[in-house]
């Protein structure tokens, strides 16, 4: 359990002691970057770096939420639907209310959906995979009932502020993500709830016997995951200046991939915020590089699969 062990020093710190796997992994990303910047002069340009930073945001937020759920030993397949619905609400409702209010509604929706997932899983002791699979489907249907055609933001400030805006060269939405990483890290490693959630991911019964309210912490993880997915949805919609009901299908898989590549263990027992950051970064850079090198899109799919494999092989746990 290399990950499980090292992802977990007794006194977690933002830069925890890293495992061999983590180092290999970091090195691999580093090499990729070096290689890319040598091979394509377009890569290390400010423009491209800004692009990558912006492209990270969506999967970044989803992955952080996914991490919180995966650390409880669960999984959340409904994030893609939440993201789409949140985008529709945040843009669609602008006709009726100020966009900040619309955003609030969207985020609330995300939290509620997460709450429902968590409650069903905790209260009835159901398998998260199937519960969130169900909510993923239902919510997708529901959001189409709400809006089966795109919605466009009415208020220009909405785009200017979140999606388009940037402080200096740094995009606002990336800054928001950059701030969320340490927040999640702090929750996971330094709060009672975060630790309890991590503990119950491996042995729920043991945590219950310690007199801990398992349900509370479990549900919180799903609420946070839903909320983060909703944020991702709002930011995406404002970045694109359009909210499409069909968006977000399959995003959950990218998020899970990012978490696992970053050292997360499905079924609980591992995964760190910083690892997820690495996973998200790796996936985004790979996408970007493949595009910059004009790799045919079919081969892109093929390669991406292989790269994921190599990544998990590099950080595999010794049997």
């Amino acid at each position: 359990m290399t990950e499980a062990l090292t992802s977990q020093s007794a006194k977690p710190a933002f830069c925890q002691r890293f495992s061999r796997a983590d180092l290999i992994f970091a090195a691999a990303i580093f090499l990729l970057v070096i290689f890319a910047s040598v091979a394509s002069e377009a890569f290390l340009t400010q423009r491209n770096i800004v692009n990558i930073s912006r492209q990270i945001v969506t999967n970044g937020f989803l992955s952080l939420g996914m991490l919180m759920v995966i650390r409880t030993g669960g999984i959340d397949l409904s994030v893609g639907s939440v993201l789409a619905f949140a985008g529709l609400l945040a843009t669609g409702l602008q006709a009726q209310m100020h966009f900040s209010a619309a955003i609030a509604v969207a985020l609330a929706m995300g939290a509620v959906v997460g709450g429902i997932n968590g409650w069903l899983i905790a209260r009835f002791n159901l398998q998260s995979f199937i519960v969130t699979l169900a909510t993923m489907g239902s919510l997708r249907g529901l959001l189409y009932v709400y809006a089966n055609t795109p919605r466009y933001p009415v208020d220009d400030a909405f785009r200017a502020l979140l999606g388009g805006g940037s402080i200096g060269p740094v995009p606002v939405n990336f800054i928001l993500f950059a701030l969320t990483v340490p927040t999640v890290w702090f929750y996971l490693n330094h709060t009672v709830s975060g630790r309890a959630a991590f503990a119950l991911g491996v042995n729920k019964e043991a945590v219950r016997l310690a007199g801990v309210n398992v349900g509370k912490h479990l549900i919180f993880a799903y609420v946070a995951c839903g909320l983060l997915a909703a944020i991702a949805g709002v930011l995406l919609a404002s970045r694109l200046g359009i909210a499409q009901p069909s968006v977000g299908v399959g995003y959950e898989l990218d998020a899970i991939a990012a978490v696992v590549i970053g050292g997360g263990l499905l079924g609980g027992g591992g995964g760190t915020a910083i690892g997820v950051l690495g996973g998200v970064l790796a996936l985004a850079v790979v996408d970007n590089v493949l595009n910059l090198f004009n790799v045919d899109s079919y081969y892109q799919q093929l390669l991406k699969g292989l790269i994921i494999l190599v990544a998990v092989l590099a950080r595999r746990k010794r049997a």
Partner: protein
Amino acid sequence: MPHLAVKNIAKSFDGNPAIVDISFAVEAGQVLALCGENGAGKSTLMKILSGALRPDSGEISLDDKPVQIGGPADAMALGIRTVYQELSLLPHLSVAENMLLGRMPTRGFGVAVDWNTANRIAGRVLAEFGFPGIDPRTLVGALGVAQQQIVEIAKALVSDPKILILDEPTAVLSASETEKLFASVQQLAAGGVIVLYISHRLEEIFEIADQVVVLKDGQSVLEGRIATLDLARVIEAMVGRPLETIYPQRNRQRGKVVLEVEKLNQTGAFVDINFSVHAGEIVGMFGLVGSGRTEVAKAIFGACPADDGTVRLKGVVANFRTPALAVASGLAMITEDRKGDGLALEASVLDNMGLASFLRVSRFGLLDGAKRRAIVDEKVRELSIRPRGHARPVRQLSGGNQQKVVIAKWLLVENTELFIFDEPTRGVDIATKVEIYQMIADLAANGVAVLLISSEMPEVLGLSDRLLIMREGRLVAELMTDDLRPEIVFAQAAGLTLHESSERLN
């Protein structure tokens, strides 16, 4: 002054009664021992007190006030602390975090965990308990089962308990740790704490208990002050008949050498191990827990192969890389950690018992279900595994009965040449121990070579022909067991001179 009374408790699991009707009362500062065969209902009763299970009927009163224990949190609030029979630690968390789970010290509006305080508290408790060696920052997963058990107990001592429940705490401990445990138990009792103590090592009970309750089939069949009872009485109450001899008579004929181990090394576990076991011979392996016996056994068995050295089986080099190979050439190993690598808890008794003996009951990979069930049922009877039947998941069996399933799994394998027993009678009741000893003796009598790893001195002394003693990963002595004094063995194991060790023993 707390006073615990339990009246007419009953509990059954989907129809099968585990506890029929139990009542007892304990005064402050008393140590109450619960004895009983495997499956008698001891753990269930304790789980009811700790809030892990809810009784079907009956009432619990503390200080003459009836209390409702709806869940573990309620029990905690009442000052009830429990050490469960099965380890309930989280391997991926640090020792400190495990000990303080649910009551982590915090700062910053009770949000942020205060790691320093946490580690300090844990360290203090461990030190007071007599184990300053265990660093509260290490991950529990990196500890051996023995140290894990220490942590498990220390966990219960963190916030000073009013009632302390210990369910077979010494099963994985050796003499020295047991002493330390008893010391703190007596200290707590002196401080007015009620201690409920479960063990199958009856000598322990006579050492620390003030009061005894003997359970049989979910009912209490004997109650009384320890002073008024003797071992025979308790055993008879438990088993329903007197036990004449504990250790079987052995007709020893030493056959050809079966196992030869030469210069076996494994970094971090053991160095330069040399010994041999002959057909029909029982070789005991004693040592303090953590001395590396299990690692040696696992290396021979191919579970975690040694770095260098040679193992020979009947003269042929046999450095197995996998257990599959070992089993194929006639090895069998009853592993020490039944929950971790001995059983598939969610799987049925049938699936677990039949796991090593597919060859007997299959042709071309097709199972003869009837035959498989037949041989399994036979062993269930032989080992009086309760409840009868092979359909239920092993998880639902009591600890001792689970241990019997592990043993049965290997007894079902045919023509085995070398049997390795690693702590075979852990958590098994006295009557069944006798049966198991008999089986081990029979195996030897039938020309099987037996390597018996055990932390129970009487066991190794009573059964083995030769005794290997390990200390800190080395074989420090090889003794013949005829009229061998425990003091000598212990001295060797602990690396003390005979004089001081005999002091520490009494």
